[in-house]
């Protein structure tokens, strides 16, 4: 009998290196692949030559084949362009969510199946569990590193063919495994920021790809407080770097892109009883409307309690407004049920 063929996405980082190594140890027929998603021959940031080289060298250490898939065009179209246009439209996109949806479990997943692989593996900190009736997605064992939030869109079709080998490990344990296996990426620093913005920062990146309209900053009562160079510099809930001096703490409570107006208010002005969602997806079907869910609106935010009614999450107690474009993941404890994108 031939063993299960697994295509593991290797970014050149320690998590996916260990994921590949563990799969090899477990006896799977493993192939490594690095997606080239961005840029030319730059040697910094994501998909740099040195990251690809790290992945290739780890694959060589493990004696598995390694390929580079050039998905740069699709990444630009499916992730970067929407990211820029969301910011210009006053939203706060989550490009990692979109990359998981359209690249890792889109383009890569489809190609893997076409090439005859049985499963795709990644180095995400999350866990796939199979019960007698369905596949479930659970938070990673390391609560501080849990990445299930950015995987809310995975359904049965994907989970049936997805392996997340390091989900049971803490980050410390991952590094210990990497050291035990003498992987060259064992001590590599983690990547934290948006991978395709390698220098300059978000505002510079956005304004280099889309024209920005300067506008006015107002308070909730309508008073003009100052001016700004473009709404992409602002996020709902932001309180630093607003560029205006007012006596007390102010937060961005609204962004209106058509009029280029940014509205500041007090914390109370941010509170909402509900959040409407689009792009809803469920791991195994929609939870009942009377079921109390744990609602998480940031990668490592503390969940609030609420219910999903139609396309809207209704909180038990008012919560700060979620920036439009952010993912809202719905859990029951450590088990992910699905989620959507805040409108």
């Amino acid at each position: 009998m031939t063993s299960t063929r697994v295509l593991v996405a290797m970014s050149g980082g320690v998590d996916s290196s260990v994921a590949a190594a563990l799969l090899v140890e477990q006896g799977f027929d493993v192939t490594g692949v690095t997606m080239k998603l961005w840029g030319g021959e730059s040697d910094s940031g994501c998909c740099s030559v040195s990251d690809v080289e790290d992945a290739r060298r780890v694959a060589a250490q493990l004696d598995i084949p390694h390929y580079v898939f050039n998905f740069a065009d699709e990444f630009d179209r499916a992730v970067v362009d929407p990211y820029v246009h969301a910011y210009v439209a006053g939203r706060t996109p989550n490009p990692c969510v979109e990359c998981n949806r359209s690249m890792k479990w889109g383009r890569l997943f489809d190609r893997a199946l076409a090439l005859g692989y049985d499963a795709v593996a990644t180095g995400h900190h999350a866990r796939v569990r199979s019960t007698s009736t369905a596949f479930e997605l659970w938070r990673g064992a390391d609560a501080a590193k849990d990445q299930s939030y950015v995987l809310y869109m995975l359904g049965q079709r994907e989970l049936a063919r997805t392996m997340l080998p390091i989900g049971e490990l803490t980050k410390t344990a991952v590094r210990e495994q990497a050291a035990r296996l003498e992987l060259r990426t064992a001590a590599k620093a983690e990547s934290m920021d948006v991978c395709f913005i390698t220098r300059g920062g978000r505002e510079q990146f956005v304004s280099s790809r889309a024209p920005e309209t300067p506008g006015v900053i107002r308070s909730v009562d309508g008073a003009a407080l100052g001016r700004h160079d473009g709404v992409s510099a602002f996020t709902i809930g932001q309180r630093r770097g607003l560029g205006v001096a007012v006596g007390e703490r102010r937060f961005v409570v609204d962004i209106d892109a058509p009029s280029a107006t940014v509205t500041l208010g007090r914390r109370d002005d941010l509170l909402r009883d509900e959040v409407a969602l689009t792009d809803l997806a469920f791991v195994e079907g929609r939870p009942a409307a009377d079921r109390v869910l744990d609602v998480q609106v940031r990668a490592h935010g503390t969940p609030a309690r609420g219910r999903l009614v139609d396309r809207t999450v209704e909180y038990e107690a008012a919560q700060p407004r979620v920036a439009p474009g952010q993912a809202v993941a719905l859990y029951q404890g450590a088990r992910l049920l699905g989620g959507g994108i805040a409108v």
Partner: protein
Amino acid sequence: MRRDPCRTPPYAGRVTTYLDYAATTPMHAEAIDAMVPYLRESFGNPSGLHTVARRAKNAVEEAREVVAGALGATPAEIVFTGGGTEADNLAIKGTARSKRAEGLGDGVVTTAFEHKGVLASCDRLGREGFRVAHVPVDRGGIVDLDALAGVLDRRTVCVSVMLVNNEVGTIQPLREVAGAVREVAPHAVLHTDAVQAVSWVDVAALVADVDLVAVSAHKFGGPKGVGVLVARNGVSLLPEIEGGGQERGLRSGTVNVAGIVAMAAAIRVTVDRRDREIERVGALRDRLERGLLAAVPDAFVNGDRTRRVAGNLHIGFPGVEAEALLVALDRRGICAAAGSSCSSGATEPSHVLAAMGVSREDAQASIRLSLGFASTDADVDVARDGIPAAVEQLRTAPMVPR
């Protein structure tokens, strides 16, 4: 689990069907044998005066004579370089800058589908203020001679047209190119990147028509990292790499003795057997082409089939992504290529096919199969069965419904 990279070669024992001779070839046994003495006992630096140095020096000069003979040049016209790209850089930048310094002009002309070594050199000159023109090529992958004549003028100082295209294998009408240059651009030097040509074309017969020829050893059974620029007498060149003044001051740096000796052995073998190999490999290629076109009826061939070298087959399979196909083939032990590879190993869209007017869709469905001196009937059998099977697999992939 950890493999010592200095002891165990990777993938030892895995059988492959190698169809990527245009990327690089295995070495001729004669070339390997020829270089070993110059890695062992005769390891001297040819610039020295003692016995070990002199042995190395003599070997380099004997190799120079062999290479000159094979390329239709005199030994004094041979400049050893670190490969084809370096030879292209030296030829183009070295002559254009020299000519401009003499006040003879500022025009540089090349084609739209050259190797990156040529295109990047011309881009560099463009940034230095030269006028750079890229002559279009036709759908069959042949340079447009009328367009060429249209961009040449009396201020043109350097013209670079490849002899054989590296992707579709088409042989360019260099004699006609030379005629146009002599007629319209009397001050221009004519350079040809002949890196893909040596195994398939009698370069020596063409050398009389051109001023500069770039060649690379690893494309004809020699080692990587060594090449030649033939610089005909009277062509004045400014060096790219300066230092100890080796190679008549045109390419400083300690001479790659073993590599040069091996290149000479390889070019001798290649030229000796060339006519027979063109016939033998051409028959293999034709059998492969017939087999693939029969098995995949909608497959299409890129490049003029009557004007390409014997080892090249550039073929497309509509609806199949070349990048995925290459992986599927590799999993079957078949080594092929597509587009041009960048340093990360990713497949980049082909500027060659784009220049020929091939649609992006067709270009992304096309792969290059290139055969050479160690290719066998068995290789063709494996490829003729394996490639249609891989195409079929990708076309009928059991799509999991969303």
